[in-house]
């Protein structure tokens, strides 16, 4: 604490001593203040940076490129996720002939819903290395759904996934399902 030098008064006819200044200054409040400011600047500098997520798009085929061989993904080796309106999500493992509004199942964007579906489909896949998730956002989807599902890919460590448009036959079933 700040020391206050009590000057001794008195002493009859005592010699007048030159005043000795105490060079000690109490630094505690200053340190307090410094720490406070330090905290403030530290937090603002770390929190102002937003998080980012990598996204790589597949390149568009050039007109003079050789046509790549068609890669057919087996139905059992893939799962199609349809991002619909009002944050709804549908999934199926069917092709254009077998897809009906019964087996276009609806699920939810959480651990119990979509993550289970992906994990189940992955477990049931014939060739686990080539298990592919096909993400098909409809025009009713919002950006959040898209980011959520990419996030889900990162969580389930599904490295093979693709984003494409809905096929017309899927669109028809989807429209029926949501009542467009």
């Amino acid at each position: 604490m700040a020391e206050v030098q009590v000057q001794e008064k008195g002493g009859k006819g005592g010699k007048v001593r030159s005043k000795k200044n105490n060079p000690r200054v109490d630094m505690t409040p200053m340190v307090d203040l410094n720490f406070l400011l330090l905290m403030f600047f530290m937090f603002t500098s770390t929190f102002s940076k937003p998080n980012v997520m990598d996204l790589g798009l597949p390149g568009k085929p050039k007109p003079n490129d050789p046509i790549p061989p068609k890669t057919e993904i087996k139905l059992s080796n893939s799962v199609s996720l349809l991002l619909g309106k009002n944050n709804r999500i549908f999934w199926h493992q069917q092709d254009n002939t077998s897809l009906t509004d019964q087996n276009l199942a609806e699920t939810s964007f959480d651990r119990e819903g979509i993550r289970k579906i992906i994990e189940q489909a992955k477990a049931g896949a014939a060739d686990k290395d080539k298990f592919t998730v096909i993400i098909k956002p409809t025009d009713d989807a919002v950006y959040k759904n898209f980011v959520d599902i990419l996030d889900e890919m990162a969580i389930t460590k599904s490295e093979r996934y693709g984003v494409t448009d809905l096929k017309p036959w899927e669109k028809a079933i989807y429209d029926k399902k949501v009542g467009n």
Partner: protein
Amino acid sequence: MARIKPKRHGVVTDMTAMCDVTFLLLTFFIMTTQFKKPDVEQIKPPSSISEKLLPDASLMTINATPDGKFYFQPVENATERLELLDKMGQKYGVTFDNNQKAAFQRVQTIGVPMNQLRSYLSLSEDEQKNFKSPKGIPMDSTNKQLVDWVEQSLSVNPEYKLAIKGDVTTEYPKVKSLFEGLRDIDFLKFWLITSQEGKPNE
């Protein structure tokens, strides 16, 4: 028997050294802090588990608002901004006077089509801040100005990185058109700005 009194220690600690250290750190953080500039429109990015922070590279940002308007934020570097403006001006046949060029070096984000850019840059800074663009930068199949901004920036300096900041409620077709446009110019790697979310514990 005389009781031995424990020696009383003074509570005074020398704070000078501590004070020095805190000052040092404080100066460091004050120097390195960059305050976030206010956004033109409120955008709430969706959350993700990604823990990667936005790198410090020369960054251009595309903001997509909830109603599907696009804003483009060119890189900070003033001389390269000038080059960019020149290139865009050439492409769209717009010329800028020196005041407008100077304004472009200071501008925060661009949210107007090329034909309105001159009048936008002529506004005072306060007016620019309060200017709410009715349409944003056009981005559709016939008029891809947004992609042109990216392309011209890349032709100024191919090292530029792109970050896209979309709102939770931005409609997907808008984002898709932007992605398709970026694929057209073969610019395939970029970042999506998200907000932090706890990693789910499995």
